């Protein structure tokens, strides 16, 4: 299989690294707008499979030229470009995969999931597959939901819980992935599914302590707007409750609330002297770049899905999760645990496509895949998966 990985950031690096070792993939094209990044990536990973190309993710026609001749494109850029890249895949006849979706459209400048799902017919007609939101969360978290749901007679609740106890030396307000995305995600009114209905709640409200598996333990979590909540209640029938909680320290939340109250998280440019600048861009420019944090991030990250329902006639609450140590990941792969966890599932998805184990056409989210091979596959790629019974 010939794969093109678009975006040579931290996650793109993990995907290429994983694929460079898989026998199913004969060639990997790494494309980015910045040739320095692709060259550095090729040097870092080595081998003979990697080819570098320059590509501008905002232009369909230029993408089509770069995509042609590849079987599949993995979009490791930011959600803003999702539709452009999907369109280019259709024209270049490539399968498509991404790790996140944008929206809501009225607040962010990136397309919503519904706009991506609208490509279903076109991909089906072209005999192509488009796997959406195939990272760790969303991604592995959706697959965990399906895996546990398959083992229950009745599913009541699906709760995604993402916790990280890491600290970054010298920074009290650091993001392990794009600070712009983190700020945006935390400030959007989170979508929740309650009693069979979707609702939006207040951002950064509803504080709750969640006890993550050891060695993380209890962390303060907040409801956050996330992809899983949009599709799991639709695709896993009969559930009453679905939400996504992210562990955020009280100091981080207070800081973010203050910045929001001041108007410093707004995208809309303001006039400063004779210049115009977006306050959020200024804020982001002052925060550390996640790719520079590397060895300074210490602690564990845990992504998992809690599913509650009836199994063998009795009510059970199970949490299926994967955990990574940031420093270990940095030593082994040169990236944080967060980037590692995000890059592995798409690499597995590519290998399954290559082996013909994923044959579904059209656009779909990960809970529609067969979850059974996934725990083994994740383990084989260095991502252990555990299931814990909750009281």
């Amino acid at each position, binding site marked *: 299989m010939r794969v093109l990985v678009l975006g040579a950031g931290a996650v793109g690096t993990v995907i290429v690294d994983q694929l460079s070792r898989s026998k199913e993939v004969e060639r990997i094209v790494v494309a980015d707008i910045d040739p320095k990044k692709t060259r550095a990536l090729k040097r870092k990973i080595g081998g003979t499979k990697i080819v570098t190309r320059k590509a501008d993710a905002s232009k369909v026609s230029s993408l089509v030229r770069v995509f042609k001749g590849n079987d599949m494109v993995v979009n490791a850029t930011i959600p803003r470009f999702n539709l452009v890249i999907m369109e280019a895949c259709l024209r270049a006849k490539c399968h498509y995969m991404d790790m996140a979706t944008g929206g809501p459209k009225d607040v962010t400048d990136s397309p919503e999931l519904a706009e991506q799902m609208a490509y279903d017919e076109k991909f089906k007609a072209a005999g192509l597959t488009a796997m959406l939101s195939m990272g760790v969360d969303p991604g592995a978290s959706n697959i965990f939901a399906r895996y546990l749901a398959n083992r229950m007679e009745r599913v009541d609740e699906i709760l995604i819980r993402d916790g990280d106890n890491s600290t970054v030396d010298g920074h009290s307000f650091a993001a392990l992935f794009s600070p712009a995305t983190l700020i945006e995600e935390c400030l959007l009114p989170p979508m929740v599914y309650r009693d069979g209905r979707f609702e939006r709640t207040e951002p950064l409200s509803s504080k709750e302590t969640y006890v993550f598996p050891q060695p993380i333990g209890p962390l303060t979590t907040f409801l956050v707007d996330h992809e899983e909540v949009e599709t799991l209640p639709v695709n896993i029938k009969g559930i009453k409750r679905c939400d996504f909680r992210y562990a955020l320290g009280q100091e981080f939340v207070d800081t973010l609330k203050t910045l929001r109250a001041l108007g410093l998280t707004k995208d809309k440019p303001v*006039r400063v002297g004779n*210049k115009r*600048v977006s306050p959020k861009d200024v*804020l982001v420019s*002052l*925060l550390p770049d996640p790719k520079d944090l590397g060895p300074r991030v210490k602690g564990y990250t845990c992504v998992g899905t809690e599913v509650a329902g009836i199994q063998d006639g009795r009510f059970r609450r199970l949490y299926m999760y994967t955990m990574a140590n940031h420093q270990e990941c940095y030593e082994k792969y040169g990236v944080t645990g967060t980037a590692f966890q995000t890059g592995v599932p798409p690499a597995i998805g590519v290998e399954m496509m290559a082996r013909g184990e994923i044959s579904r056409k059209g656009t779909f989210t990960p809970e529609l895949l067969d979850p059974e091979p996934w725990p083994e596959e994740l383990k084989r790629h260095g991502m252990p998966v555990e299931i814990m019974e909750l009281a």
Partner: protein
Amino acid sequence: MKAMVLGTGAVGSVTAEVLAKSGEYDKVVLADVNLERARRTEKKISSDAVTVVKVDAADDAALAAAIKGVDIVLNAVIPRFNAAIMETCLKARVSYGDMAWDIATDRTRPGEIIKEVPATNFLKYDDAYRKAGITGMIGLGCDPGLSNLFARMAADRMDRVKEILVRDGDNGTVAGHHFAPLWSPETLIEEVLMPATVYTDGAFRKLPPFSGREMFEFPDPVGSLPIYNVDHEEQETLPTYIGKVLGKGCDYCDFKIALGGEYVEVINVLGKLGLASTKKVDVKGVKVSPRDVVSAVLPDPATLADRAKGACAIGTITKGVKDGKEVGYYIWTELDHEQCHKKYGYSATAYSVGVPFAIAAVLFAQGKVKQKGVFPPEMLDPEPFVKMLPKYGMNCVEKKL
């Protein structure tokens, strides 16, 4: 008499209006780099005494030409230009007044002793002004200004002064705003994040930001508010002038301002993230100072005056000894935001600074300020000054401790 009010922002406009209506000045020149702004003030005052001229305070030659024939220049622009304006006045033999000075120039770190307080940068013109036969009144607004005079009033009743504590409290809020400083946000951020000067044990020393938190009972309706040490002008001159020049002594002097919980949180966050920094950063090819961006997103204090509710109380506690007995006075002025705006069309913050500044100029015109040279407010006779406050709707209240 002819006065020039340099800078027609909120404070300059108040001062100009009081001067024009005082009957002591037959000419009040409004000078501003922005002629439109000067014209708006001229229109608001609507007095035959008022004229406008376009002057850039940063352009020494232009200023020198503009002040010919003027008796006193009242500097109401940002403090950055004070020294240059004082030089220009000296060369032209024109008296001078201002209501704040740049205290941010000192780089002494918390815990260390300050070698030379920033006030020296301006008081050093004393000899030259004396020789030229002109007067230079510095820091003559509300605080500094009235606060210094309140200390002097109390000190005049004592044989020896022990402590001078300046206390600035404001419970003003603006509906719909989480953080809306009624004073220049840049100045507020700077004042609060800078190590604060305190005079103790015979030296001017620096404290870390947010030091000395305590609750202070401001007079009603301001009430009890948390206060913190902040860097300010008063403590740079009072220990020297009340203590040494007037010979009353002074063991301790500080300035504390009331800061609500949200102010402390906001300023901490800005400091922590580098948003209070004036060092330019590159943001997608645009070079800006983060603090300027913060100011740009905050509401302009000028637009808040008509919506501010609450009151401010600015005063000084002076403790000492009289006839062998411990005595103490708390003397303050108080202003209601809404009433002030309704009555005078200015924010209480600007009004309380602009009025004392104008009173100093009125006293100067009346020949009641006889001193030559450069001096801080505590060197003026407080009695005629304070007597004039009620005429302009400001009060002076005192309580024996």
